[in-house]
C-alpha cells in the first residue's frame, strides 16, 4: 500500500474526493473531473454539413479562458494556421482579453487602496469587546460609542452566542480590549471591594421599553441594599407586574453594573439569577448581604441583612 493509498483510506472517501480535497483546483466543474466530456472538436468539425470555422469560432472564448482540453486547443490552433479569418478572430479575442486584464489591474489597484472599513462602508456602529477575570469567573465586556452594552458571565454563556446577540442588536462586533478597559477596571475595583458605584455610560440598544424601565429603576438600588421584584414593579408604576419584572431582569444585558442581583423575592429568598444563584450570592456577599448557604436549594436561601 502506497502512502497515497493510506491517506485515501484515512480520508475515508473515494480517491476522487481525496484528489479534490488535496488539489483544490480539481473542482467539480473542472474538465478533468467531468465524467462525460463532450466529443473532441476535431470530430465535430469533421461531420458533414459542419463548417469547421463555426466550430473553431464557437470554441474560442473557451480557449482564451483556458477551458478547452489540450487536444481541442491544439485543433483550434492548427485550424487558425490554415484559416486567416479564424486566426484574426483568435488574435483579437486574445487582445480583448489582455485589455480586460489591463482594465482589471487598474481597478484592482484602486480597490486595494480604498477598501472601506466595514462599519464605515455599511454605516453600522461597532461594538468592541474584551474580557476580565473576576471572583465569579471570566466575564465578557462589550461597549459601543455610547457606552457599555454587554457584560456576560462566560461560566454559563457561550461567547459566540453572546457576540451573535450583540450583532442582532445591529452592531459590528470586534475584539478591542482597550475600548472596554475603563469598564474592566471598574469591575475589578468592585470585586476588590474598592468601588460601590459605577461611573460608566451605558448603551441599552435593543432593549424593550418595559425592560428599559425596569433596568433604570434597578440601577438606582444602592450598594448593599436589596429590593423585591414587587418593589421594582411599583417603582415603574406597574405594581402587578412583579413576574414581568423578574423576566425583564433576566434579560439584563449589563449585570453587576445594573445591579439586578439586588432584586430578591418578597419571601426574602434570593430568587433566580442570570449567572446562576452562586454568582448572585457572591455579589450580594461582596456588598455585605449574607444568604445562608445551608439551605439546599439556594434560590430559597433565607436573607439576613448584615
Amino acid at each position, binding site marked *: 500500500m502506497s502512502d497515497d493509498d493510506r491517506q485515501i483510506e484515512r480520508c475515508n472517501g473515494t480517491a476522487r474526493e481525496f484528489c479534490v*480535497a*488535496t488539489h*483544490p483546483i480539481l*473542482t*467539480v*466543474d*473542472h474538465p478533468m473531473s467531468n465524467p462525460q466530456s463532450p466529443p473532441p472538436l476535431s470530430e465535430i468539425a469533421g461531420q458533414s454539413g459542419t463548417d469547421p470555422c463555426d466550430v473553431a469560432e*464557437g470554441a474560442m*472564448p473557451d480557449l*482564451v*479562458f483556458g477551458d478547452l482540453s489540450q487536444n481541442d486547443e491544439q485543433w483550434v490552433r492548427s485550424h487558425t494556421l490554415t484559416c486567416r479569418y479564424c486566426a*484574426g*478572430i483568435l*488574435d*483579437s*479575442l486574445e*487582445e*480583448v*482579453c489582455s*485589455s*480586460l*486584464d*489591463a*482594465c*482589471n489591474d*487598474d*481597478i*484592482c489597484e*484602486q*480597490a*486595494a487602496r*480604498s*477598501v*472601506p472599513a*466595514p462599519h464605515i*462602508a*455599511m*454605516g*453600522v456602529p461597532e461594538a468592541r469587546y474584551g*474580557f476580565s477575570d473576576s471572583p465569579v469567573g471570566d466575564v465578557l465586556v462589550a461597549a459601543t460609542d455610547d457606552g457599555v452594552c454587554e457584560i456576560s458571565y462566560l461560566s454559563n454563556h457561550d*461567547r*459566540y452566542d453572546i*457576540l*451573535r446577540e450583540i*450583532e*442582532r442588536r445591529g452592531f*459590528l*462586533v*470586534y*475584539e478591542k480590549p482597550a475600548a472596554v478597559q475603563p469598564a474592566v477596571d471598574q469591575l475589578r475595583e468592585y470585586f476588590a471591594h474598592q468601588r460601590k458605584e459605577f461611573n460608566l455610560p451605558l448603551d441599552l440598544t435593543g432593549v424593550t421599553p418595559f425592560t428599559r424601565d425596569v433596568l433604570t429603576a434597578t440601577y438606582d438600588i444602592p450598594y448593599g441594599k436589596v429590593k423585591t421584584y414587587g418593589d421594582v414593579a411599583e417603582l415603574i408604576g406597574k405594581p402587578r407586574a412583579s413576574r414581568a419584572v423578574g423576566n425583564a431582569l433576566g434579560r439584563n444585558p449589563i449585570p453587576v453594573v445594573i445591579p439586578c442581583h439586588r432584586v430578591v423575592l418578597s419571601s426574602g429568598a434570593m430568587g433566580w439569577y442570570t449567572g446562576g444563584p452562586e454568582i448572585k450570592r457572591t455579589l450580594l456577599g461582596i456588598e455585605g448581604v449574607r444568604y445562608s448557604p445551608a439551605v439546599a436549594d439556594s434560590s430559597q436561601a433565607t436573607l439576613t441583612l448584615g
Partner: protein
Amino acid sequence: MPVGYSTPDARDTSRATSSVPDKCLFTNVVERFGNEVFRFCCQLTGNVVDADDLYQETLLKAFRAFDRLPLDANHRAWLYRIASNTFISDRRKMSRVQPISDGLAESLSASQTDQASALDARELLGEVETFVQALPPKQRVALVLRKHHEYGYAQIAEVLNSSEAAARANVHEALMKLRGAFAHRLEV
C-alpha cells in the same frame, strides 16, 4: 481571544479557503472576504465610487440576512451572489431612468472609432471599460467572474441562478461583443 475562525471547528486548514466554521460572526465573514468582495464590486461597477455603494448595499443585505443563513453555508459564494444580484437589480432600476442599452454603447464606440489612430492605449482601455460597463448586467457579472475570479460555469450559473449553458452563453456573448466593438482597433 479571537472568536469564530479559531474555534476547533476550523482546524481543517486545507478547506479553510472555501469553507468557514459553523460558528462565526458576521464580522469574521467580512474580515475574511470583505477585500475580495470589494474588488469584485469595483470590477462590476468599474469605479470606486459606485463600488462603495454596491459594497455597502451588499454588506447591509448580508448583515440583515445573516441570521437566516444556514450554519454550514458557503459565506464567500453567498456574498458574491448578493453582490451580483444587487448589481443586476440596481442596473435594471437605473436603466429605467437612464437607459444604457447595447445599441447606445455600440454607437458610442462606433462614433469614436473614427479617431482611432489618435487614441493612445490608455484611452482605448478607458473605452473598453466603458463598453464593458454598458454590457447587460448579467453578461457583465458572468464575464467578471469567469475572467477575473476563475469561476467555472457551474459556479457562475449558481450566482446568476441560471443554467450552466446560459452562464456560458453570457460569457461568450460578452466576449464576442467586445471583440466586435474593438477588434479592428486592437489590431492596429
